């Protein structure tokens, strides 16, 4: 069996592991369009902050890839010939496949406004982006980050660490709009300001002039470096051209199979089911990309046996020592929630009846593992138990129902132990 994977990021690594869990012999070729080897995108901010310390961004080592018998080819795919089961590369090379995985990921969104092509306007998505930024940044200059999502925040952190004056501009009403609630955003905002990152919400970029950014409200800010972090859009062109079923992202069935039985897709390029809301959407998250890749790999190598149940939104990020973890979604606009707050710690949980549907934890990462899994596994825990937990949210106070379930799953017999 000959496996070809377009894209060399997290989903691709998951797929390698998935394929190799079943098929130890088949050849695996990764088409690395970026030509940078297999690396982890979230690490670029660490690279920018401390280029010497984080030179190596490899997600898996070269030995690891060797060990799994993976052939990494530099080159990007320009066409998929489904009838001949071939991929055409930019340099005309033709790679044939038995099973193909599209894991092309996404690209930063760049608005079509004047001045956006200025040399000091950058995106923050690839190693090349970081290297470009690195070459122009100067300590003490003003950096403006447009967009306060995960990428924007990590960019802001690393630029701040490099000694720039950093401001983050958000078009929505509060920072990290996809992750935080208004209440928690307020707190994080204060902590960020203390840490030296200025923020400004409700401002939409309209134009970029010489060393200056203009906003819809009339605000005008001086700027030396402008980083666009306004979200991403999936790389679906290849799939569209090949005639695969595509919506916002590539459409796949529960086995990660596209409308072509020999072609699978995984990672940021696909639409998946949000298991809290039940809707199909793009969930560009690293843990999900790995899982999707893995399951796609298993299904590609064997019979279609491993169904993907979907995922939940989850994020953990550290900005200048402020830890923010969040998982889940709100099934309705109005959802009941409970809040606990102490010093610089904050926890907000959202309840949908007896089910936890979302939480936001600021500087309280210790309890988030069980919270995430309570959401993902849809474990029913009564509201009064949550109320008790929220009086002092520690692992020991976590509802016993959860621990009992975990222990039941482990289910060891003492007599059989060593």
């Amino acid at each position: 069996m000959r496996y070809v994977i377009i894209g060399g990021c997290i989903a691709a690594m998951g797929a390698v592991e998935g394929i190799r869990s079943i098929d130890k012999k088949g050849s695996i070729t990764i088409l690395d369009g970026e030509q940078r080897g297999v690396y982890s995108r979230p690490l670029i901010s660490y690279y920018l902050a401390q280029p010497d310390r984080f030179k190596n961004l490899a997600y898996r080592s070269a030995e690891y890839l060797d060990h799994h018998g993976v052939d990494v080819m530099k080159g990007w795919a320009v066409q998929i010939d489904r009838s001949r089961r071939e991929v055409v590369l930019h340099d005309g090379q033709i790679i044939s496949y038995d099973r193909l995985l599209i894991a092309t990921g996404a690209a930063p969104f760049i608005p079509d406004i004047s001045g956006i092509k200025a040399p000091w306007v950058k995106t923050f998505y690839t190693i090349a982006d970081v290297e470009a930024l690195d070459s122009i940044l100067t300590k003490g200059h003003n950096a403006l980050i447009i967009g306060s999502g995960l990428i924007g925040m990590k960019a802001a952190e690393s630029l701040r660490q490099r000694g720039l004056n950093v401001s983050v501009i958000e078009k929505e009403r509060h920072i990290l709009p996809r992750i935080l609630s208004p209440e928690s955003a307020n707190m994080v905002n204060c902590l960020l300001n203390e840490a030296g990152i200025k923020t400004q919400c409700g401002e939409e970029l309209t134009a970029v002039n010489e060393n200056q950014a203009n906003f819809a409200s009339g605000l005008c800010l001086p700027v030396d470096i402008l980083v666009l972090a306004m979200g991403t859009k999936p790389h679906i062109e290849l799939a569209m051209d090949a005639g695969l079923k595509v919506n916002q992202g590539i459409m796949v069935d529960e086995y990660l199979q596209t409308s072509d039985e020999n072609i699978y897709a995984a990672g940021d390029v696909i639409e998946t089911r949000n298991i809290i809301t039940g809707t199909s959407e793009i969930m560009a998250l690293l843990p999900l990309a790995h899982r999707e890749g893995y399951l796609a790999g298993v299904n590609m190598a064997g019979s279609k046996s491993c169904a993907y149940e979907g995922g939940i939104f989850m994020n953990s990020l550290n900005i200048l020592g402020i830890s923010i973890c969040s998982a889940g979604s709100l099934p309705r606009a109005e959802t009941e929630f409970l809040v606990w707050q102490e010093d610089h710690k904050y926890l907000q949980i959202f309840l949908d009846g007896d089910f936890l549907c979302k939480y936001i934890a600021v500087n309280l990462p210790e309890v988030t593992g069980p919270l995430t899994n309570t959401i993902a596994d849809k474990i029913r825990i009564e509201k009064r138990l949550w109320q008790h937990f929220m009086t002092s949210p520690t692992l020991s106070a976590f509802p016993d129902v959860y621990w009992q379930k975990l222990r039941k799953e482990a289910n060891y017999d003492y007599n059989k132990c060593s």
Partner: protein
Amino acid sequence: MKVVAWTEYCLGCGLCEIYCAAQHDGYNGNVLKIFKKGRPMHRSRLLKAEQGTWLNTCMHCTHAPCINGCISGAIKRDPNGIVYVDYERCVGCYSCVMLCPHGHVRPWSERHQVLKCDLCRDTGLPSCVANCPNGALQLVD
């Protein structure tokens, strides 16, 4: 391999945490030295809940969410199946903390990295198991 904790025999004495801390960071089980001269950071935690006390330790899951969710590839599995942290690579994003269903992986805030059980893979029998006075911890396959 993993350490399984039995609440029915756990006394909550806390020796597991103490010996866990002493076994790591080059202290080779010298409890006195790590507590007097070092920074005792135990990996596994003793929890106290309704059902009693138990050591919250790593299950070294087959499909370990911490490995799959690690952004830097710092959490790895060794040939014996032990899931451990490569401190050369850990950047302290706490994704693993957020993903661990047992709440076992925890932040090592002063180093901006994470702590988790590595089954004392450099020294043989896990220190918590070897020093549990009541056999409440057992190493199982």
